[in-house]
């Protein structure tokens, strides 16, 4: 009798554990992605060393860019960058959500030098283009990613000459200091 009780208890615990998994496999491949292309206007600056296409939920209303805003990005490979292309195609895997600011940033060595006396820190000067509303290009475009929504395809017009002017850039640009905002 006691044996049955213990074995039953054991079977129930293992069974609950198995049922708790509900035929799930934990982490799964994310099914959605944002694809598109960036078309560049003008000559690439000689100093460009890195370029990123970046997706965030919102363009920050304050003068900061926190890493937590970052929801997805694509780094243009070195071999593409060195060719100074007119067009870049990209694909970024994304979680479901609505993303209201997709932009391209082109960086030079000065942009990644965080010394306090750097005269040319990372800033709005590195913004080379934004995804704009196709029906009203004076506004930022919005992208919705989610299950059941067809794959999103966007086009970003970037400009080096004349320098790109962002939509409603909130004044000067500042970054979160690690000492203040570190985890």
């Amino acid at each position, binding site marked *: 009798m006691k044996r049955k009780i213990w074995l039953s208890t054991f079977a129930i615990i293992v069974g609950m554990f198995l049922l708790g*998994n509900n035929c799930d496999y934990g982490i799964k*491949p994310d099914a959605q992605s944002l694809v598109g292309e960036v078309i560049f206007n003008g000559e690439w600056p000689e100093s460009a060393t890195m370029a990123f296409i970046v997706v965030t939920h919102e363009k920050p209303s304050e003068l900061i860019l926190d890493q937590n805003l970052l929801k997805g990005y694509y780094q243009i490979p070195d071999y593409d960058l060195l060719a100074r292309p007119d067009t870049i195609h990209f694909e970024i895997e994304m979680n479901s959500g609505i993303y209201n600011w997709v932009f391209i940033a082109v960086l030079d060595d000065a942009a990644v030098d965080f010394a306090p006396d750097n005269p040319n820190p990372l800033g709005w000067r590195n913004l080379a283009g934004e995804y704009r509303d196709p029906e009203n290009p004076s506004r930022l475009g919005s992208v919705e990613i989610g299950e059941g929504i067809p794959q999103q395809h966007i086009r970003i017009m970037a400009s080096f000459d004349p320098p790109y002017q962002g939509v409603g850039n909130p004044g000067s640009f500042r970054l979160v200091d690690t000492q203040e905002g570190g985890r």
Partner: protein
Amino acid sequence: MKNKSLLIISLFLVLALIAFAETTYRVSGKITDEKGKGLPGANIVVVGTGKGASTNLSGEFTISDLPSGTYQFTVSMIGYETTSQDVTLVADQAITFSLLPKAYQSQPVVVTASRTRQRLQDSSVSTSVVEAEQIAERNFLSADEAMRFVGGVSMNDSQISIRNSTGFAYGTGSRVLVMVDGVPISSGDTGEIKWDALPIGQIEQLEVVKSAGSALYGSEAMGGVVNIITRKPDEGATYKISSEFGVWDKPAYEQWEWSDKTRTFHRVGIEHTRHIKDWGLLLSLEQKRDDSYVQASNFSRGQVFGKATRKVGESGTLSLMANVAYEDRGTGVEWESQRKALSVDPNKTDDRTWSTKVQVNAQYSGSSKGGRQLWSVKAHTNYYSWISRLYAGQDSEGNNIDDMHNSISAKTGIDGQLTFVPRDDHRFTTGAEFNVISIDANIFGKRDGFGGAIFVQDEINTFNPLVATIGLRGDVFHVNASDEYHGETYGNINPKIGAVYHITDDIALRSNFGTGYRMPTMSELFTEIKVAGILDVNPNPNLRAEQAYSAEGGFSWISGSQLFDFAVFSNWYKDMIEPQPDERIGTYVQFKNIQDAHIYGAETSMRWNMGELVEMGGGEGGILHRADFNFSYLFTKAINTTDSEKQGETVYLPYRPEHTLMLITSVNYWKHGSLAIDTRWKSKPLLGLYDNDPTVDQRVIDVTNRFTYDRWTLQLKVSNLLNWNYIEIDRNIAPIRRFSAHFSVNF
């Protein structure tokens, strides 16, 4: 003439056979339990002869054709203590062996918690013990696999954390001291633990001390101590051949498949132990290969482990140990994407690391007549070298460029310890250590340093049943100056106080308070490395040592192998060193003294051995002899108090699960079988580098079935039965489901 010669030869042969037959004997007898009931299926081996037998349903056996002489008979059976007896044969003989079930053995003895032998319940700090049988029953492939099923322990990839003391930094800056036979094995450069180099097949007992151990063991023991005690050479001459073959299952999702080839792994090993004059010798050779379930993580590895012991005088023991491992391993750092979670960036498939690990130690221990004075001296060297080839980018023509990184480190130390027992109620322990670290690496520079420590501890039993312990340790370590570095001396004094109150022989209350500290490792101070697109680590030579205050209270009931333990603990950390990504660029990382933290929680462990409850009468062919249940639940909150003070909200430390539940069971069935089912559930932790990556709970079930017959063992195992996909560290899927078969024979 020819016929006459043949006749003489034939007669001679017949006479020789008769003479030979006259000098062989038969040994018969019975193997019983402690109540005299015959045990079916028990194994008896005549050491060194290759002869042996298994008992029948009545527990009886017969071994024939043994020439006269003295033999060692070893008797074993699952669930019972193995026993040996010397027998001199001059005639047929009947012998009866009585085996004690493991359920009735006295409670475990540990050596780590207070640097002296003591009963588990006499320790004032929480300590877990894993015995060799538990490891063998589950056929773990490496020591870190075994650690994943120890209550209170988390593994973040290869980085061990006890009660959430440690996050993840690619092994760098361990807050847990790991020792083999009481000797530290961490590397001199990163301070990490090379789990793959540990001899999993030679472990006799694992001891895990779950409280700050700096007051006895110094800087590395800030978050606890793991002591891996290797087995001693056997008395007789024996060989063991073992092999293992396994297959990785297909990924749970088609999108994750990256290879058409079936991914397999294997291990072969041979070990020999014998005595030559006064020396007991143990030698083990092992080779492993694994295609791996994830791209660019395959490896091949060779390992040699040797141990020699001899008695010196009446009470002294000299022990020499050497462990050498070589490995060639793919170095996939993170997945290509969540959609291709078992693949790496196509440019990084050839990233590899070659490493050599050597651990050597010599120990001498002895005692005075009567055992009032015990002393030991240990000397050790850990030599580790590695070279990595990592993708660094592309040239203007699109060709891949690799960076080569390397490190050679040596950590050498000597320590002496004296325990003095002036009266039965008083035990005084003192000792000193000295160690030297030397590094030559292109990512750390050429560094060296030296340090020493003195410790004292007094255990007072005057107010029986209260046992009080007080201790103090002073440490100092100097990192030598170099061209661009001014040099630094780290030092600290760590006190501890503990008490155990024995309410009855089986029930005890315990409490302890101590401080801990950890000096930064060379890699935390000086690492400068860039891993393309993933990490850009920069040195920080201004790091300060971490400080910790640790308090714990607990209750335990131990009766035979039945155990219940409950503990509450609270640890405060100051100036915690953690890798900090720069918010401006996510991949830029530097080690910083950025956090004050508070980690607190509760842990309960239970172990039931239910042999009596489930026995159905083995002698009558019953199906179930014994069942063991181990249950462990850990609740912790690891809070970054630096941030919470500034922002007014709770900020959790990364890589620390809040809840951990383990259920570890084994059941013996029929005469030769045992089934082990181990489950582990951990709540999903906060990740470190990528806040937005998905995390899930860990839900892992391992099932192992073992059959033993005579000297043969066959094990079949399914690891991660549910094929549950989870991550312990950023962008790395933990091992998926795999199937393996293990075979071994002793002779």
